[in-house]
Protein backbone atom coordinates (compact mmCIF):
# COMPACT_ATOMS: atom_id res chain seq x y z
CA UNK A 1 0.00 0.00 0.00
CA UNK A 2 2.88 2.32 0.87
CA UNK A 3 6.20 1.68 -0.77
CA UNK A 4 9.33 3.75 -0.38
CA UNK A 5 12.20 2.75 -2.57
CA UNK A 6 15.71 3.92 -1.66
CA UNK A 7 14.40 7.35 -0.69
CA UNK A 8 16.83 10.10 0.21
CA UNK A 9 16.09 13.60 1.43
CA UNK A 10 18.89 16.11 1.63
CA UNK A 11 18.26 19.61 2.91
CA UNK A 12 20.62 22.08 1.28
CA UNK A 13 23.20 23.94 3.36
CA UNK A 14 21.86 27.08 4.96
CA UNK A 15 24.13 29.73 6.45
CA UNK A 16 26.59 28.19 8.87
CA UNK A 17 24.98 24.75 8.81
CA UNK A 18 26.10 22.33 6.13
CA UNK A 19 23.68 20.20 4.15
CA UNK A 20 21.65 17.77 6.19
CA UNK A 21 20.89 14.23 5.05
CA UNK A 22 17.60 13.71 6.88
CA UNK A 23 16.63 10.46 5.19
CA UNK A 24 19.41 8.35 3.80
CA UNK A 25 18.30 5.61 1.42
CA UNK A 26 15.21 4.26 3.15
CA UNK A 27 13.18 1.45 1.62
CA UNK A 28 9.96 0.53 3.31
CA UNK A 29 6.83 -1.41 2.43
CA UNK A 30 3.55 -1.31 4.32
CA UNK A 31 0.81 -3.76 3.36
CA UNK A 32 -2.85 -2.85 2.98
CA UNK A 33 -4.53 -2.84 6.37
CA UNK A 34 -1.24 -2.96 8.25
CA UNK A 35 -0.53 -0.79 11.28
CA UNK A 36 3.11 0.08 10.80
CA UNK A 37 5.38 2.11 13.04
CA UNK A 38 8.53 4.09 12.47
CA UNK A 39 10.40 4.52 15.71
CA UNK A 40 13.64 6.27 16.50
CA UNK A 41 15.27 8.95 18.60
CA UNK A 42 14.61 12.61 17.85
CA UNK A 43 16.63 13.79 14.91
CA UNK A 44 16.57 10.37 13.29
CA UNK A 45 14.55 11.66 10.34
CA UNK A 46 11.14 10.20 11.27
CA UNK A 47 9.16 13.37 10.70
CA UNK A 48 10.83 13.98 7.36
CA UNK A 49 10.20 10.37 6.39
CA UNK A 50 6.45 10.57 7.02
CA UNK A 51 6.27 13.82 5.00
CA UNK A 52 7.88 12.05 2.07
CA UNK A 53 4.92 9.67 1.88
CA UNK A 54 2.42 12.40 0.93
CA UNK A 55 5.12 14.50 -0.69
CA UNK A 56 4.82 17.39 1.75
CA UNK A 57 8.56 16.99 1.30
CA UNK A 58 9.79 16.01 -2.15
CA UNK A 59 12.46 13.29 -1.96
CA UNK A 60 15.86 14.22 -3.35
CA UNK A 61 15.99 10.77 -4.94
CA UNK A 62 14.12 7.49 -4.78
CA UNK A 63 10.48 6.71 -5.41
CA UNK A 64 7.29 6.81 -3.36
CA UNK A 65 4.30 4.65 -4.28
CA UNK A 66 0.97 4.86 -2.46
CA UNK A 67 -1.99 2.69 -3.41
CA UNK A 68 -0.35 1.74 -6.69
CA UNK A 69 0.29 5.36 -7.70
CA UNK A 70 3.89 6.36 -8.24
CA UNK A 71 3.60 9.74 -6.53
CA UNK A 72 7.12 10.89 -7.27
CA UNK A 73 6.33 10.82 -10.98
CA UNK A 74 3.06 12.77 -10.77
CA UNK A 75 2.70 16.47 -11.58
CA UNK A 76 1.81 18.77 -8.65
CA UNK A 77 -1.89 18.94 -9.45
CA UNK A 78 -2.24 15.15 -9.34
CA UNK A 79 -0.15 14.92 -6.18
CA UNK A 80 -2.68 17.30 -4.64
CA UNK A 81 -5.51 14.97 -5.68
CA UNK A 82 -3.63 11.93 -4.38
CA UNK A 83 -3.17 13.59 -0.97
CA UNK A 84 -6.94 13.38 -0.49
CA UNK A 85 -6.63 9.64 -0.07
CA UNK A 86 -3.84 10.06 2.48
CA UNK A 87 -5.06 11.45 5.80
CA UNK A 88 -2.60 12.92 8.26
CA UNK A 89 -2.60 13.74 11.98
CA UNK A 90 0.02 15.83 13.71
CA UNK A 91 1.67 16.08 17.10
CA UNK A 92 0.16 19.50 17.78
CA UNK A 93 -3.23 18.72 16.18
CA UNK A 94 -3.12 21.81 13.90
CA UNK A 95 -6.83 22.51 14.20
CA UNK A 96 -8.07 25.91 13.04
CA UNK A 97 -8.99 28.12 16.00
CA UNK A 98 -11.33 30.08 13.78
CA UNK A 99 -13.57 27.04 13.33
CA UNK A 100 -15.62 24.80 15.58
CA UNK A 101 -14.88 21.10 15.91
CA UNK A 102 -17.45 20.39 13.19
CA UNK A 103 -16.06 23.24 11.08
CA UNK A 104 -12.60 21.71 11.27
CA UNK A 105 -13.91 18.32 10.16
CA UNK A 106 -15.73 20.04 7.29
CA UNK A 107 -12.57 21.77 6.09
CA UNK A 108 -11.24 18.95 3.87
CA UNK A 109 -14.79 18.27 2.64
CA UNK A 110 -15.09 21.92 1.63
CA UNK A 111 -11.79 21.67 -0.23
CA UNK A 112 -13.11 18.66 -2.11
CA UNK A 113 -16.16 20.65 -3.17
CA UNK A 114 -18.85 18.88 -1.15
CA UNK A 115 -22.14 20.73 -0.62
CA UNK A 116 -23.01 22.35 2.71
CA UNK A 117 -25.78 20.03 3.88
CA UNK A 118 -23.79 16.94 2.94
CA UNK A 119 -20.75 18.31 4.79
CA UNK A 120 -22.77 18.92 7.93
CA UNK A 121 -24.09 15.40 7.89
CA UNK A 122 -20.70 13.83 7.26
CA UNK A 123 -18.99 15.91 9.97
CA UNK A 124 -21.62 14.81 12.48
CA UNK A 125 -21.09 11.20 11.49
CA UNK A 126 -17.31 11.50 11.93
CA UNK A 127 -17.52 13.25 15.29
CA UNK A 128 -19.78 10.41 16.43
CA UNK A 129 -17.18 7.93 15.21
CA UNK A 130 -14.47 9.52 17.39
CA UNK A 131 -16.81 9.86 20.35
CA UNK A 132 -17.28 13.64 20.23
CA UNK A 133 -20.77 13.85 18.75
CA UNK A 134 -21.81 16.20 21.55
CA UNK A 135 -18.92 18.64 21.09
CA UNK A 136 -19.59 19.62 17.46
CA UNK A 137 -19.99 23.29 18.32
CA UNK A 138 -16.97 23.53 20.61
CA UNK A 139 -13.92 25.60 19.65
CA UNK A 140 -10.51 23.91 19.78
CA UNK A 141 -9.61 26.14 22.75
CA UNK A 142 -12.48 24.56 24.69
CA UNK A 143 -11.29 20.99 24.09
CA UNK A 144 -8.67 18.92 25.92
CA UNK A 145 -5.59 17.67 24.09
CA UNK A 146 -7.05 14.21 23.64
CA UNK A 147 -10.31 15.66 22.33
CA UNK A 148 -8.42 17.91 19.89
CA UNK A 149 -6.56 14.92 18.53
CA UNK A 150 -9.86 13.05 18.13
CA UNK A 151 -11.22 15.97 16.10
CA UNK A 152 -8.02 15.95 14.05
CA UNK A 153 -8.46 12.23 13.41
CA UNK A 154 -12.08 12.82 12.36
CA UNK A 155 -10.83 15.54 10.01
CA UNK A 156 -8.15 13.25 8.56
CA UNK A 157 -10.79 10.57 7.89
CA UNK A 158 -13.36 12.95 6.40
CA UNK A 159 -12.64 12.32 2.73
CA UNK A 160 -12.42 8.56 3.25
CA UNK A 161 -8.67 8.07 2.81
CA UNK A 162 -7.12 4.64 2.42
CA UNK A 163 -3.95 5.61 4.25
CA UNK A 164 -3.53 7.43 7.55
CA UNK A 165 -0.23 9.03 8.52
CA UNK A 166 0.35 9.83 12.20
CA UNK A 167 3.24 12.12 13.09
CA UNK A 168 3.90 11.76 16.83
CA UNK A 169 0.12 11.80 17.27
CA UNK A 170 0.27 11.09 21.00
CA UNK A 171 3.49 12.84 21.99
CA UNK A 172 1.72 15.96 23.28
CA UNK A 173 -0.83 13.94 25.28
CA UNK A 174 -0.94 12.60 28.82
CA UNK A 175 -1.03 8.86 29.48
CA UNK A 176 -4.82 8.49 29.64
CA UNK A 177 -5.41 10.49 26.44
CA UNK A 178 -2.62 8.59 24.71
CA UNK A 179 -4.28 5.29 25.49
CA UNK A 180 -7.63 6.61 24.27
CA UNK A 181 -6.22 7.98 21.02
CA UNK A 182 -4.25 4.79 20.32
CA UNK A 183 -7.35 2.69 20.90
CA UNK A 184 -9.25 4.95 18.52
CA UNK A 185 -6.56 4.63 15.84
CA UNK A 186 -6.57 0.87 16.17
CA UNK A 187 -10.38 0.79 16.00
CA UNK A 188 -10.65 2.97 12.88
CA UNK A 189 -7.98 0.86 11.24
CA UNK A 190 -10.05 -2.26 11.97
CA UNK A 191 -13.41 -0.75 11.04
CA UNK A 192 -12.36 1.20 7.94
CA UNK A 193 -9.63 -1.13 6.73
CA UNK A 194 -7.08 1.69 6.75
CA UNK A 195 -3.37 1.34 6.31
CA UNK A 196 -1.65 3.29 9.07
CA UNK A 197 1.90 4.58 9.24
CA UNK A 198 2.70 5.93 12.68
CA UNK A 199 5.80 7.88 13.63
CA UNK A 200 6.83 7.90 17.27
CA UNK A 201 9.79 8.08 19.59
CA UNK A 202 8.00 6.00 22.22
CA UNK A 203 8.43 2.23 22.25
CA UNK A 204 5.30 1.90 24.37
CA UNK A 205 3.25 3.31 21.48
CA UNK A 206 4.72 0.79 19.05
CA UNK A 207 4.01 -2.02 21.51
CA UNK A 208 0.43 -0.90 22.00
CA UNK A 209 -0.73 -0.57 18.39
CA UNK A 210 1.72 -1.62 15.71
CA UNK A 211 1.79 -4.88 13.76
CA UNK A 212 5.19 -4.05 12.36
CA UNK A 213 7.84 -1.40 12.79
CA UNK A 214 11.15 -0.12 11.57
CA UNK A 215 13.85 1.37 13.74
CA UNK A 216 15.31 4.53 12.26
CA UNK A 217 18.65 6.00 13.25
CA UNK A 218 20.36 8.94 11.56
CA UNK A 219 18.13 8.65 8.52
CA UNK A 220 18.68 4.94 7.99
CA UNK A 221 16.59 1.88 8.72
CA UNK A 222 18.56 -0.10 11.30
CA UNK A 223 16.10 -2.91 11.88
CA UNK A 224 12.51 -3.78 11.16
CA UNK A 225 9.83 -6.32 10.52
CA UNK A 226 6.67 -7.73 12.02
CA UNK A 227 6.91 -7.33 15.79
CA UNK A 228 6.26 -11.02 16.37
CA UNK A 229 9.29 -11.85 14.22
CA UNK A 230 11.52 -9.09 15.52
CA UNK A 231 11.06 -10.18 19.13
CA UNK A 232 12.19 -13.71 18.49
CA UNK A 233 15.06 -12.80 16.19
CA UNK A 234 18.45 -13.08 17.93
CA UNK A 235 20.32 -9.81 18.29
CA UNK A 236 17.57 -7.63 16.86
CA UNK A 237 18.09 -4.00 18.00
CA UNK A 238 14.38 -3.29 17.61
CA UNK A 239 13.51 -6.45 19.55
CA UNK A 240 15.85 -5.37 22.34
CA UNK A 241 14.34 -1.90 22.38
CA UNK A 242 10.81 -3.31 22.57
CA UNK A 243 11.62 -5.90 25.20
CA UNK A 244 14.68 -4.70 27.09
CA UNK A 245 16.91 -7.50 28.28
CA UNK A 246 16.71 -7.93 32.03
CA UNK A 247 19.85 -6.98 33.85
CA UNK A 248 21.58 -9.54 36.04
CA UNK A 249 22.10 -8.67 39.66
CA UNK A 250 25.71 -7.54 39.90
CA UNK A 251 26.05 -8.77 43.45
CA UNK A 252 25.07 -12.36 42.67
CA UNK A 253 27.56 -15.19 42.59
CA UNK A 254 29.34 -15.37 39.26
CA UNK A 255 29.69 -19.01 38.66
CA UNK A 256 27.62 -20.61 35.95
CA UNK A 257 26.50 -19.33 32.57
CA UNK A 258 23.88 -16.74 31.77
CA UNK A 259 21.18 -17.61 29.26
CA UNK A 260 18.75 -15.09 27.89
CA UNK A 261 15.54 -16.85 26.99
CA UNK A 262 12.69 -15.24 25.08
CA UNK A 263 9.37 -16.97 25.37
CA UNK A 264 6.11 -16.16 23.62
CA UNK A 265 2.56 -17.11 24.44
CA UNK A 266 3.00 -19.94 21.95
CA UNK A 267 5.81 -21.44 24.02
CA UNK A 268 4.53 -24.40 26.07
CA UNK A 269 4.35 -23.11 29.63
CA UNK A 270 6.57 -25.68 31.24
CA UNK A 271 9.04 -26.14 28.40
CA UNK A 272 11.97 -24.05 29.65
CA UNK A 273 12.19 -25.04 33.30
CA UNK A 274 11.05 -28.58 32.67
CA UNK A 275 13.84 -29.09 30.15
CA UNK A 276 16.56 -27.46 32.19
CA UNK A 277 15.74 -28.77 35.61
CA UNK A 278 13.56 -31.78 35.13
CA UNK A 279 15.24 -33.42 32.14
CA UNK A 280 18.84 -32.20 32.37
CA UNK A 281 19.15 -31.80 36.11
CA UNK A 282 20.76 -28.37 35.89
CA UNK A 283 20.64 -25.83 38.70
CA UNK A 284 18.74 -22.78 37.51
CA UNK A 285 18.48 -19.42 39.17
CA UNK A 286 16.29 -16.67 37.72
CA UNK A 287 18.53 -13.63 37.56
CA UNK A 288 15.99 -11.31 35.97
CA UNK A 289 12.94 -11.20 33.79
CA UNK A 290 10.15 -9.18 32.27
CA UNK A 291 6.90 -9.90 30.51
CA UNK A 292 5.25 -7.45 28.10
CA UNK A 293 2.26 -7.34 25.82
CA UNK A 294 3.38 -6.49 22.30
CA UNK A 295 1.06 -6.38 19.29
CA UNK A 296 -1.55 -8.24 21.30
CA UNK A 297 0.77 -11.13 22.18
CA UNK A 298 2.60 -11.84 25.45
CA UNK A 299 6.36 -11.93 25.36
CA UNK A 300 8.71 -12.72 28.18
CA UNK A 301 12.42 -12.42 28.51
CA UNK A 302 14.17 -14.34 31.27
CA UNK A 303 17.75 -14.17 32.33
CA UNK A 304 18.72 -17.54 33.76
CA UNK A 305 21.91 -18.42 35.61
CA UNK A 306 22.61 -22.06 34.93
CA UNK A 307 25.15 -24.24 36.67
CA UNK A 308 25.85 -27.87 35.98
CA UNK A 309 28.60 -28.26 33.44
CA UNK A 310 29.34 -27.13 29.90
CA UNK A 311 28.07 -30.27 28.25
CA UNK A 312 24.70 -30.00 29.94
CA UNK A 313 24.46 -26.36 28.96
CA UNK A 314 25.07 -27.02 25.28
CA UNK A 315 22.47 -29.70 25.35
CA UNK A 316 20.06 -27.30 27.05
CA UNK A 317 20.52 -24.59 24.43
CA UNK A 318 20.07 -27.14 21.71
CA UNK A 319 16.89 -28.57 23.16
CA UNK A 320 15.28 -25.23 23.86
CA UNK A 321 16.01 -23.97 20.35
CA UNK A 322 14.50 -27.13 18.96
CA UNK A 323 11.40 -26.31 20.98
CA UNK A 324 11.13 -22.91 19.25
CA UNK A 325 12.54 -20.83 22.10
CA UNK A 326 14.99 -18.00 21.40
CA UNK A 327 18.05 -18.68 23.55
CA UNK A 328 21.11 -16.48 23.64
CA UNK A 329 24.22 -17.05 25.73
CA UNK A 330 25.18 -13.91 27.48
CA UNK A 331 28.59 -12.88 28.75
CA UNK A 332 27.91 -12.14 32.39
CA UNK A 333 30.21 -9.15 32.65
CA UNK A 334 28.75 -7.43 29.58
CA UNK A 335 25.27 -7.93 30.92
CA UNK A 336 26.15 -6.52 34.30
CA UNK A 337 27.92 -3.59 32.73
CA UNK A 338 24.70 -2.32 31.08
Amino acid at each position, binding site marked *: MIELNDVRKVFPARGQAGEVVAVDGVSLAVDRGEFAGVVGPSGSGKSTLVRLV*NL*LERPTSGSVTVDGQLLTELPDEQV*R*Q*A*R*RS*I*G*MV*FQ*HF*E*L*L*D*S*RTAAGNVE*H*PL*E*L*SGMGRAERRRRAGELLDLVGLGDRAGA*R*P*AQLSGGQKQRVAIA*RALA*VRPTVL*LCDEATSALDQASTTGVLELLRRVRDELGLTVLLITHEMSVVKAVCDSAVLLDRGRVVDGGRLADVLTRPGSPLGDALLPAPVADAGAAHDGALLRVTVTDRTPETLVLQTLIGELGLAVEIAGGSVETVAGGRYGRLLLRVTGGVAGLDDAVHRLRAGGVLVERVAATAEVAR
Partner: protein
Amino acid sequence: MSDWNRIWPQLLDATWETLYMVGVAALVTVLLGVPLGVLLTVTAPGGLAPRPLLHRLVGLVVNLGRALPFIILLVLVAPVTRGIVGTTIGSTAAIVPLTIGAVPFLARLVETSLREVAAGKVEAALSMGARRRDVVRTVLLPEARPSLVAGITVTVVALISYSAMAGAVGGGGLGDFAIRFGYQQFRTDITLATVVLLLVIVQALQWAGDRWARSLAHA
Protein backbone atom coordinates in the same frame (compact mmCIF):
# COMPACT_ATOMS: atom_id res chain seq x y z
CA MET B 1 -17.85 83.38 22.78
CA SER B 2 -20.76 84.42 20.63
CA ASP B 3 -19.27 83.41 17.26
CA TRP B 4 -19.51 79.69 18.15
CA ASN B 5 -22.94 79.73 16.50
CA ARG B 6 -21.12 80.48 13.27
CA ILE B 7 -18.26 78.06 13.92
CA TRP B 8 -20.22 74.93 14.92
CA PRO B 9 -21.67 74.15 11.48
CA GLN B 10 -18.24 74.56 9.92
CA LEU B 11 -16.68 72.29 12.52
CA LEU B 12 -19.36 69.75 11.72
CA ASP B 13 -18.62 70.04 8.00
CA ALA B 14 -14.91 69.59 8.68
CA THR B 15 -15.68 66.48 10.74
CA TRP B 16 -17.67 64.99 7.88
CA GLU B 17 -14.84 65.78 5.49
CA THR B 18 -12.39 63.95 7.74
CA LEU B 19 -14.69 60.96 8.10
CA TYR B 20 -15.24 60.90 4.33
CA MET B 21 -11.52 61.10 3.50
CA VAL B 22 -10.53 58.54 6.09
CA GLY B 23 -13.48 56.26 5.35
CA VAL B 24 -12.88 56.01 1.61
CA ALA B 25 -9.09 55.86 2.02
CA ALA B 26 -9.45 53.11 4.64
CA LEU B 27 -11.70 51.08 2.35
CA VAL B 28 -9.32 51.34 -0.59
CA THR B 29 -6.34 50.71 1.70
CA VAL B 30 -7.86 47.45 2.95
CA LEU B 31 -8.71 46.39 -0.61
CA LEU B 32 -5.13 46.98 -1.75
CA GLY B 33 -3.12 46.48 1.44
CA VAL B 34 -4.44 43.04 2.40
CA PRO B 35 -3.63 41.44 -0.98
CA LEU B 36 -0.23 43.14 -0.95
CA GLY B 37 0.42 41.74 2.54
CA VAL B 38 -0.63 38.29 1.29
CA LEU B 39 1.77 38.66 -1.65
CA LEU B 40 4.60 39.59 0.71
CA THR B 41 3.84 36.57 2.89
CA VAL B 42 3.49 33.86 0.25
CA THR B 43 6.47 34.97 -1.85
CA ALA B 44 8.81 35.07 1.17
CA PRO B 45 11.55 32.42 1.36
CA GLY B 46 9.98 29.37 2.97
CA GLY B 47 6.52 30.72 2.12
CA LEU B 48 3.73 29.02 0.19
CA ALA B 49 5.08 30.13 -3.17
CA PRO B 50 8.62 31.39 -2.63
CA ARG B 51 9.66 34.02 -5.18
CA PRO B 52 12.70 35.62 -3.51
CA LEU B 53 13.25 38.23 -6.23
CA LEU B 54 9.61 39.36 -6.39
CA HIS B 55 9.50 39.34 -2.60
CA ARG B 56 12.48 41.65 -2.34
CA LEU B 57 11.17 43.96 -5.04
CA VAL B 58 7.75 44.32 -3.43
CA GLY B 59 9.43 44.71 -0.03
CA LEU B 60 11.56 47.53 -1.40
CA VAL B 61 8.57 49.42 -2.81
CA VAL B 62 6.68 48.96 0.47
CA ASN B 63 9.64 50.23 2.47
CA LEU B 64 9.99 53.23 0.19
CA GLY B 65 6.35 54.08 0.81
CA ARG B 66 6.89 53.82 4.55
CA ALA B 67 10.20 55.65 4.67
CA LEU B 68 8.89 58.71 2.85
CA PRO B 69 7.58 61.42 5.21
CA PHE B 70 3.88 61.79 4.50
CA ILE B 71 4.12 65.52 3.84
CA ILE B 72 6.67 64.82 1.07
CA LEU B 73 4.49 62.06 -0.33
CA LEU B 74 1.59 64.51 -0.50
CA VAL B 75 3.54 66.71 -2.88
CA LEU B 76 5.17 63.88 -4.81
CA VAL B 77 1.92 62.15 -5.75
CA ALA B 78 0.18 65.35 -6.82
CA PRO B 79 0.49 64.45 -10.53
CA VAL B 80 -1.01 61.02 -9.83
CA THR B 81 -3.83 62.63 -7.90
CA ARG B 82 -4.55 65.01 -10.77
CA GLY B 83 -4.60 62.06 -13.12
CA ILE B 84 -7.12 60.12 -11.04
CA VAL B 85 -9.35 62.81 -9.50
CA GLY B 86 -8.76 65.71 -11.89
CA THR B 87 -7.67 68.10 -9.15
CA THR B 88 -5.19 68.15 -6.26
CA ILE B 89 -7.40 70.22 -3.99
CA GLY B 90 -10.24 69.07 -1.75
CA SER B 91 -11.15 66.03 0.32
CA THR B 92 -11.60 63.69 -2.64
CA ALA B 93 -8.15 64.59 -3.94
CA ALA B 94 -6.65 63.96 -0.50
CA ILE B 95 -7.88 60.37 -0.61
CA VAL B 96 -5.22 59.46 -3.19
CA PRO B 97 -2.10 60.37 -1.13
CA LEU B 98 -3.76 59.04 2.03
CA THR B 99 -4.28 55.68 0.38
CA ILE B 100 -0.80 55.57 -1.11
CA GLY B 101 0.64 56.37 2.31
CA ALA B 102 -1.43 53.80 4.19
CA VAL B 103 -1.25 50.79 1.85
CA PRO B 104 2.43 49.92 2.55
CA PHE B 105 1.81 50.45 6.26
CA LEU B 106 -1.10 48.01 6.31
CA ALA B 107 0.69 45.57 4.00
CA ARG B 108 3.51 45.14 6.52
CA LEU B 109 1.04 44.68 9.37
CA VAL B 110 -0.85 42.08 7.32
CA GLU B 111 2.40 40.28 6.55
CA THR B 112 3.26 40.11 10.24
CA SER B 113 -0.21 38.83 11.12
CA LEU B 114 -0.17 36.12 8.48
CA ARG B 115 3.33 35.01 9.37
CA GLU B 116 2.16 34.35 12.91
CA VAL B 117 -0.25 31.66 11.74
CA ALA B 118 1.39 28.36 12.73
CA ALA B 119 3.18 26.69 9.83
CA GLY B 120 1.65 23.39 10.96
CA LYS B 121 -1.85 24.63 10.13
CA VAL B 122 -0.70 25.41 6.60
CA GLU B 123 0.94 22.00 6.37
CA ALA B 124 -2.26 20.33 7.62
CA ALA B 125 -4.28 22.05 4.88
CA LEU B 126 -1.72 21.05 2.23
CA SER B 127 -1.92 17.46 3.47
CA MET B 128 -5.67 17.62 2.76
CA GLY B 129 -4.91 18.49 -0.84
CA ALA B 130 -5.52 22.24 -0.54
CA ARG B 131 -4.36 24.52 -3.34
CA ARG B 132 -2.21 27.47 -2.34
CA ARG B 133 -5.10 29.85 -2.80
CA ASP B 134 -7.26 27.56 -0.63
CA VAL B 135 -4.62 27.84 2.08
CA VAL B 136 -4.73 31.65 1.92
CA ARG B 137 -8.53 31.72 1.84
CA THR B 138 -9.37 29.03 4.39
CA VAL B 139 -6.36 29.04 6.72
CA LEU B 140 -4.15 32.15 6.68
CA LEU B 141 -6.79 34.88 6.48
CA PRO B 142 -9.39 33.33 8.85
CA GLU B 143 -6.79 32.30 11.43
CA ALA B 144 -5.19 35.76 11.37
CA ARG B 145 -8.51 37.61 11.48
CA PRO B 146 -8.29 39.01 15.03
CA SER B 147 -4.78 40.23 14.36
CA LEU B 148 -5.79 41.61 10.94
CA VAL B 149 -8.62 43.59 12.51
CA ALA B 150 -6.17 45.03 15.03
CA GLY B 151 -3.82 46.00 12.18
CA ILE B 152 -6.62 47.64 10.23
CA THR B 153 -7.61 49.62 13.34
CA VAL B 154 -4.06 50.90 13.76
CA THR B 155 -4.00 51.84 10.08
CA VAL B 156 -7.29 53.77 10.27
CA VAL B 157 -6.03 55.70 13.28
CA ALA B 158 -2.84 56.51 11.36
CA LEU B 159 -5.03 57.64 8.47
CA ILE B 160 -6.79 60.13 10.74
CA SER B 161 -3.46 61.62 11.72
CA TYR B 162 -2.35 61.69 8.05
CA SER B 163 -5.64 63.33 7.09
CA ALA B 164 -4.89 66.25 9.40
CA MET B 165 -1.70 66.81 7.39
CA ALA B 166 -3.55 66.47 4.11
CA GLY B 167 -5.66 69.35 5.36
CA ALA B 168 -2.59 71.54 5.34
CA VAL B 169 -2.35 71.25 1.55
CA GLY B 170 -6.00 71.96 0.86
CA GLY B 171 -7.56 68.63 1.69
CA GLY B 172 -10.14 70.03 4.07
CA GLY B 173 -11.21 68.23 7.20
CA LEU B 174 -10.45 68.77 10.87
CA GLY B 175 -6.73 69.36 10.41
CA ASP B 176 -7.36 72.08 7.88
CA PHE B 177 -10.01 73.55 10.18
CA ALA B 178 -7.70 73.61 13.18
CA ILE B 179 -5.02 75.42 11.19
CA ARG B 180 -7.26 78.00 9.52
CA PHE B 181 -9.56 78.83 12.43
CA GLY B 182 -7.52 77.84 15.46
CA TYR B 183 -3.87 78.36 14.69
CA GLN B 184 -3.92 81.22 12.20
CA GLN B 185 -6.58 83.23 14.08
CA PHE B 186 -5.05 82.55 17.50
CA ARG B 187 -8.23 80.82 18.67
CA THR B 188 -6.89 78.27 21.13
CA ASP B 189 -10.45 77.23 22.03
CA ILE B 190 -11.12 76.22 18.44
CA THR B 191 -7.83 74.27 18.24
CA LEU B 192 -8.69 72.57 21.48
CA ALA B 193 -12.22 71.70 20.35
CA THR B 194 -10.81 70.16 17.17
CA VAL B 195 -8.24 68.12 19.06
CA VAL B 196 -10.91 66.86 21.45
CA LEU B 197 -13.08 65.88 18.52
CA LEU B 198 -10.19 64.00 16.88
CA LEU B 199 -9.46 62.27 20.16
CA VAL B 200 -13.08 61.16 20.47
CA ILE B 201 -13.03 59.76 16.93
CA VAL B 202 -9.73 57.91 17.48
CA GLN B 203 -10.86 56.59 20.84
CA ALA B 204 -14.16 55.35 19.42
CA LEU B 205 -12.41 53.64 16.52
CA GLN B 206 -9.86 51.96 18.75
CA TRP B 207 -12.59 50.77 21.10
CA ALA B 208 -14.68 49.37 18.26
CA GLY B 209 -11.62 47.73 16.69
CA ASP B 210 -10.54 46.11 19.94
CA ARG B 211 -14.02 44.79 20.58
CA TRP B 212 -14.28 43.40 17.07
CA ALA B 213 -10.87 41.74 17.29
CA ARG B 214 -11.74 40.22 20.66
CA SER B 215 -15.03 38.85 19.38
CA LEU B 216 -13.08 37.07 16.62
CA ALA B 217 -10.42 35.58 18.86
CA HIS B 218 -11.29 32.04 19.92
CA ALA B 219 -7.88 30.84 20.91
